[in-house]
């Protein structure tokens, strides 16, 4: 464990996971908002919106995340000049958040849509029959009931998002996998301990996350 007793390495280790948590948190919020909007589009009566939602899902769900992140850096930043912060790392961080959010939103959208399908269509008809608009029907009647059946899949998506966040390392953010690679490069005698510490930290964050969502899903399950 001599590697992590060096304060410089330990700080790098801590800050790398801090980046992961920040990427996960910001992207989760972005993906949730975007994903719900996309799901609303996909079930809307307007063909253009339905097409837009379907196109988004099919494009981003079927593109490797690495490509999406590369595009954010080389496309949005280098070519189109979209700079989100003066600070080098913060800029990469926000580009990463954009990439992770757009990509993950496709999965959130499909989870929400399958949740919407668990709500009996008759209830949406009854809502329209008393004069609620499409948006009101979705917001007041359908989504609150869909949310309950979507919690468990959301847990899996969040866990995947947290692990996917390491891909932002490929465009230069010193997140966990990049720091791990550096530590291994400089400490060839401790490859396995280094690996186990990083993997163990992910497990320590994600296993409770999984149990939490499982517990929440049971608690809020719809009683029919």
């Amino acid at each position, binding site marked *: 464990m001599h590697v992590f007793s060096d304060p410089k390495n330990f700080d790098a280790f801590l800050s790398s996971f801090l980046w992961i948590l920040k990427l996960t948190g910001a992207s989760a919020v972005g993906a949730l908002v975007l994903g719900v909007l996309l799901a609303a589009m996909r079930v809307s009566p307007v063909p253009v919106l339905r097409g837009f939602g379907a196109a988004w899902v099919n494009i981003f769900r079927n593109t490797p995340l690495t490509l999406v992140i590369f595009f954010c850096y080389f496309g949005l930043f280098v070519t189109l000049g979209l700079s989100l912060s003066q600070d080098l790392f913060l800029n990469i961080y926000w580009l990463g958040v954009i990439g992770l959010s757009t990509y993950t939103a496709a999965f959130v959208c499909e989870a929400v849509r399958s949740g919407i399908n668990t709500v009996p269509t008759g209830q949406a*008809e009854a809502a329209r029959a008393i004069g609620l608009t499409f948006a009101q029907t979705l917001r007041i009647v359908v989504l609150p009931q869909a949310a309950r059946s979507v919690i468990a899949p959301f847990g899996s998506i969040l866990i995947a998002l947290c692990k996917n966040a390491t891909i932002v390392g490929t465009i230069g953010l010193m997140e966990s996998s990049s720091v791990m690679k550096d530590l291994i490069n400089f400490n060839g005698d401790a490859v396995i301990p280094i690996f186990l510490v990083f993997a163990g930290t992910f497990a320590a964050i994600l296993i409770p996350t999984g149990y939490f969502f499982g517990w929440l899903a049971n608690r809020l399950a719809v009683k*029919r």
Partner: protein
Amino acid sequence: MDDVATGEPLIVLDSVNKWFGPLHVLDDVSLSVGRGEVVVVIGPSGSGKSTLCRTINRLEPINSGTITFDGQKLPAEGKALAKLRSEVGMVFQSFNLFAHKTILENVTLGPVKVRKEKPAAARERGLALLDRVGIANQADKFPAQLSGGQQQRAAIARALAMQPKAMLFDEPTSALDPEMVGEVLDVMTSLARDGMTMVVVTHEMGFARHAANRVIFMADGKLVEDAAPAEFFANPRSERAKDFLSKILTH
């Protein structure tokens, strides 16, 4: 109940056609329903009677023809359609109460969210309506905790809370256990007596006999007969209607 209000009819269907793929589910249907009139629609399953009922508040769009409600052509969609729907109460076969809301919340949702009534006032009126349909003591329960008959009465109260100009009933008793049919029909009969304009799709011939002003018989998407109940049940003119009645009335 022959003293039906005259004047301009409330609901007018003119040459309405609808297809589900190759199936001609409404075949040139024309019908007008006067204010305060109770029209019962009967016919074999698959005859298009539920679809007919659902076109009146445009839960089913039509392919051709026109439908007019209270002098206004049905809007295609958007706010105007939502407004029209708020004026037409609908009761479904499967109740369709909002499962995550209490009975009282089911009843007050429309008045508060669509009519922008004050919650306290809507609540008071909602409780009065629940009392009228005989389930005031169930107000704070969730739909799943009620019997089918109670749920359907709650659904009627929910529709009435919008103070609709007409009520549509799409086989309101078909999903009920036999012993609960009566309590729902009682509520409907009292509504009819109070002068509500009603279109009722049903298999309850007793209700058709004693509460309807007119009976519509449908078969294969066509409106085959349109007559007063006594006349229809005593002397059906078409072979289809004779055949249908012979099948249901012999038991």
